[in-house]
């Protein structure tokens, strides 16, 4: 599992609005890549283009290429549904399915695609995914209770379990801790550290300390002014970005001069 992603000259539009301009970058497998930058700079938008979730918004489209191990996600014959099975996503607010139990939530990706699953295989996948999300010990006695009944941090880890149950190559996280308390945040950050041994992880975060703590590489996004497209200013190893960035704007941002 775990694949490398190459983004080449990616431009993102919402209708006529040019949201992000000309992004090129490489995301290494088995590593954590963080996107940081001020609000509205397009970091979440770029993240969503990595599994074509931006297409949910009517009028959104891109030009350029996103290659996952040399397969273009935007090739005409590529099915977005297929892309999303390989590139999982965790959202800002925990969103377990309210009609489903914890168990059903974890297995949702499989059952919604109507793949038949024997009871034993389902149990195994369930335990494996929940263990992978550091949630197994907390919920193993109440797997048939509603997923919405868990605490916010547990719900978010349930969503991570749900994402890894479909066994993707890449996991995208869109500010996964912004709705959580510090303890839950810590649990998620620990989990991210473990996930990178199996997956390519890309995380968008507002929190620079978080980026510094969890990521191997960091990309800094910025926009020149409101209404202008966002762009990738620079991308480098995390220690370098935070100690010795090559661009002035990056330094200004991480030293807290704006953003």
């Amino acid at each position: 599992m775990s694949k490398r992603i190459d983004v080449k000259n990616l431009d993102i539009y919402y209708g006529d609005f040019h949201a992000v301009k000309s992004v090129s970058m490489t995301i290494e497998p088995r590593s954590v890549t963080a996107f940081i930058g001020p609000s509205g700079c397009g970091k979440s938008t770029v993240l969503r283009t990595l599994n074509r979730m931006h297409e949910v918004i009517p009028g959104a489209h891109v030009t350029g290429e996103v290659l996952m191990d040399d397969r273009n996600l935007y090739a005409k014959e590529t099915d977005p549904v297929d892309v999303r099975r390989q590139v999982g996503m965790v959202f800002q607010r925990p969103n377990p399915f309210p009609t489903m139990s914890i168990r059903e939530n974890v297995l949702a990706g499989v059952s919604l695609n109507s793949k038949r699953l024997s009871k034993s295989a389902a149990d195994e996948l369930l335990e494996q995914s929940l263990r992978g999300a550091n949630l197994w010990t907390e919920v193993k006695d109440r797997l048939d209770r509603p997923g919405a009944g868990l605490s916010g941090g547990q719900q978010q880890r349930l969503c991570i379990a749900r994402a890894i149950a479909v066994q993707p190559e890449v996991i995208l996280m869109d500010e996964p801790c912004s709705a959580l308390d510090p303890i839950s945040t810590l649990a998620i950050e620990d989990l991210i550290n473990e996930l990178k041994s199996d997956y390519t992880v890309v995380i968008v975060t507002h929190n620079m300390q978080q980026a510094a703590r969890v990521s191997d590489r960091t990309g800094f996004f910025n926009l020149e002014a409101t209404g202008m497209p966002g762009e990738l200013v620079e991308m480098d190893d995390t220690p370098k970005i935070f100690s010795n960035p090559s661009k002035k704007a990056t330094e200004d941002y991480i030293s807290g001069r704006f953003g």
Partner: protein
Amino acid sequence: MSVETEPTARQRKLSEIEGVDLDTVRASSNRQSYIVLGLAVVVGALLWLLGLHPALAVVLAFVAYLVIVYAVYRSTAGSRVAVDQVARGLVLGAFVLALVPLVSLLWTVIVRGGATVVSPAFLGQTMNGVTGLQDQATQRDGAELIGGAYHAIIGTLIITGLAALISVPIGVFTAIFLVEYQPKGRVSHLIRFLVDVMTGIPSIVAGLFAFALWAVLFGIGTKNGFAGAVALSVLMISTVVRNSEEMLRIVPNELREASLALGVPKWRTIAKVVLPTAASGLASGITLAIARVIGETAPLLVAVGYARGLNVNPAEGPMNTLAVYAYYMFTKPLSPGYREPSLDRAWAAALLLVLIVVVLNLSARFIARAFAPKTGR
């Protein structure tokens, strides 16, 4: 409210700024209002005993309650609390006022229809061959009631069932179109507009439409059960669309995104995530739509006509339905001199309709719970 601090040069207290008129609130409880309420009840009872019309006594007592409550709270807790209490009184008053006719209606229906609705004649017989003579015998000589609403019950089920079969798929899929496929844009704008127009179709006009349509298709004056089902569908579709659209819209986008991000195709996302999440709402919306049309009278009067006997073929000839049956029995008794048996049948049919509505609503709740079993338990 206020913490005693020395006002500094930079920050003055609100009360010291010119033009700010602070209206403070002092602690209060609802206790006084209950005492006043008790007082008002006593006043009302006295007025009634003094010979006032009971309705008038109640109104006067209520006004007295509002005035006294305002005065009491204004003096103890300030005018804002007094206004709050008056609002409270008005809200409670509205609630009680509305209960009066509704309770009276249910009471009348149960008392007037209760005895007849359980009689085997009402449930098992049609009006075939029943004339004023039988009613005369029933009322004057105490003979058993002859003639019931069996045919109307069957007709109601057939016509409403057909209407639901037409409306529910069209309505729910239209809602899916509006929420999932074309949430914005000119087409959905047009469809929403048309649904609004449809909502505005008065029931009698729907009946006229079915009548006119059938007149063109099958010759003028053709009345049958299908025409009634079409008329009811015209009324029902818009309700189903509106209710369903509302319910689908409430489903958080995050759930759709969660599903799509798991690599689930759009139609499965709709069918297995959106619809189940909205299931309870959809079920209750559909049931309310059915319950609304099951008691329709006017369109069926126009499009289906009136049958005295059983007709189970909706493609051929007039049928009867409970609402139309009640209307005819109530306004055109079989024997003008001996109206009671006909009125009994009318009230029994009314009670039966109300009961059906209740059962429909209860079963909607039950189904809703069965569809979404794992939330909040």
